[in-house]
């Protein structure tokens, strides 16, 4: 009951308050929701299926580049471009997943393969003139055109990423209670046992891969439209890959709200460390890294895991 009231209040605040926020705070909040969204997408594969991707930037970049190139070259609205980008990313994810899972790559080996694919795309991007090489691509943003995913001011982008996050959460929640959700959990816990219980482990992992990469690509398009600029290092570089997995792991991998809580803690934290240590390049990242290490060593199950454990203990008493 208390949890439901708290959730309703949180949703009401997220919908009603932003128009009243100063610009900087709104930007931080957009950033929080953006990383939460990527975390939710990563969580489907990394948390639910237990396949730890270290290269989600591949899908993010495919989404960003597909919709942006279609916009610049043929004038296609990014609203459609983002779906095409998602489909392309899902196809790439299936290819990557099939190669890895077919040959039984697990754990860190799978992570390395995903990292390698993302880096490969980054290098291709840097060296391909047709996609702007390392200079990147500028997305036209001078005038507002809602049909073309272009808005004046930050607020519309806030509501778009809020809606994307809500839809992705609803999808995750629904999957978690479905046959697919149980198959994902079974594969994560024990693949051999899952197979004897009739779960097609390969197909299950590929489904997670396709869904996760599709959603991640939509985040790429959002990024391109919001910041109006992409380049290969931003889009395919490791910071996006890490940014997608951290909120999920810190918040609680494989739990619906994990990435959301994770991002609400991590994103402001990274802003604060950057502000506190401004002028000393790199020092903020070191502090941020140290805090992360503490969180991971003391909260191996993430924030949601800690809350659950507390509740379970209280229940036993």
């Amino acid at each position: 009951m208390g949890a439901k009231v708290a959730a309703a209040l949180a949703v009401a605040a997220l919908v009603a308050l932003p128009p009243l926020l100063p610009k900087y705070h709104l930007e931080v909040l957009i950033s929080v929701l953006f990383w939460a969204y990527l975390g939710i997408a990563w969580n489907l594969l990394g948390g639910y299926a237990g396949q730890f991707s270290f290269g989600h930037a591949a899908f993010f970049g495919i989404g960003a580049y597909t919709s942006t190139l279609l916009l610049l070259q043929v004038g296609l609205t990014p609203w459609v471009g983002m779906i095409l980008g998602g489909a392309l990313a899902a196809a790439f994810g299936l290819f990557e997943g099939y190669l890895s899972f077919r040959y039984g790559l697990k754990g860190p080996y799978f992570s390395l393969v995903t990292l390698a694919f993302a880096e490969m795309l980054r290098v291709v991007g840097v060296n391909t003139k047709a996609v702007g090489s390392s200079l990147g691509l500028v997305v036209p943003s001078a005038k507002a055109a809602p049909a073309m995913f272009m808005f004046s001011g930050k607020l519309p982008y806030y509501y778009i990423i809020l809606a994307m996050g809500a839809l992705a959460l609803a999808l995750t929640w629904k999957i978690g209670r479905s046959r697919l959700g149980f198959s994902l959990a079974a594969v994560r816990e024990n693949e051999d046992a899952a197979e004897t219980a009739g779960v097609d482990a390969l197909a299950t992992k590929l489904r997670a891969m396709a869904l996760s990469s599709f959603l991640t690509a939509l985040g790429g398009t959002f990024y391109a439209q919001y910041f109006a600029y992409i380049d290969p290092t931003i889009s395919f570089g490791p910071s996006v890959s890490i940014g997608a997995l951290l909120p999920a792991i810190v918040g609680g991998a494989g739990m619906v709200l994990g990435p959301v809580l994770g991002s609400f803690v991590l994103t402001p934290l990274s802003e604060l460390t950057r502000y506190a240590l401004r002028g000393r390049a790199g020092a903020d990242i070191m502090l941020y890294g140290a805090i992360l290490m503490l969180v991971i060593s003391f909260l191996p199950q993430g924030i949601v895991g800690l809350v659950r454990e507390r509740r379970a203990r209280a229940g036993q008493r």
Partner: protein
Amino acid sequence: MSLLEMSALTKRFGGLLAVSNFDLNLDAGEIVGLIGPNGAGKTTVFHLIAGFHAPTSGEIRFKGGSIVGSKPHAICRLGLTRTFQIVQPFAGLSVIENVMVGAFNRERDAVAARRLAGEIVDFVGLGPRRDMPARSLTLSDRKRLEIARGLATRPEMLLLDEAMSGLNPTEIDEIIGLIRRIHARGVSLLIIEHVMQAIMALSHRLVVLHHGEKLAEGAPGEVARDRRVIEAYLGEGA
């Protein structure tokens, strides 16, 4: 036609001949015990039947169709599944959730799967622990959970790999009773077991494996008196 037929089944791991030219037929409604000293190849036979290893040569047919080269999940969907000697629960899931994974084979819908899983959990005697995480179960309960997960897939044939090892005599009696009730539901069983009193009591037929080859086959009483079987277990001159 037998439910499960193996002919000239052979599995070689490098220089080791784990199973050699093994023939075995099981009819619907049978309980067959597969025994033999450690390292005889019993578990390898299970791996071959359930699809975890491909045989080097030979044929395995289930309900008349070849299952050689099929993956475990596909064989499970045909109606044949196994348990593991070292129990492998989904540790992070609750008892009922573990069993639901199996139940989803026959029920697409989560409510129906939960209902089927609930019946099975009660059937194996884990009803009071249905919402406990699998990792907190005792060994005896984990063995039951392993059986429950298999049963939830609604198998026609169940392979039990040492479902009683490590249990005390009372727990063993309970599992014997459970296996009888499973059989009464119309499930045929192939059982690997080292607990002799149990395998003698349960099996309609015993097959002895030694160095990967079939050493003897017959009614439990006959096989237990077989000179070669006694030698295989106790050494020559016994």
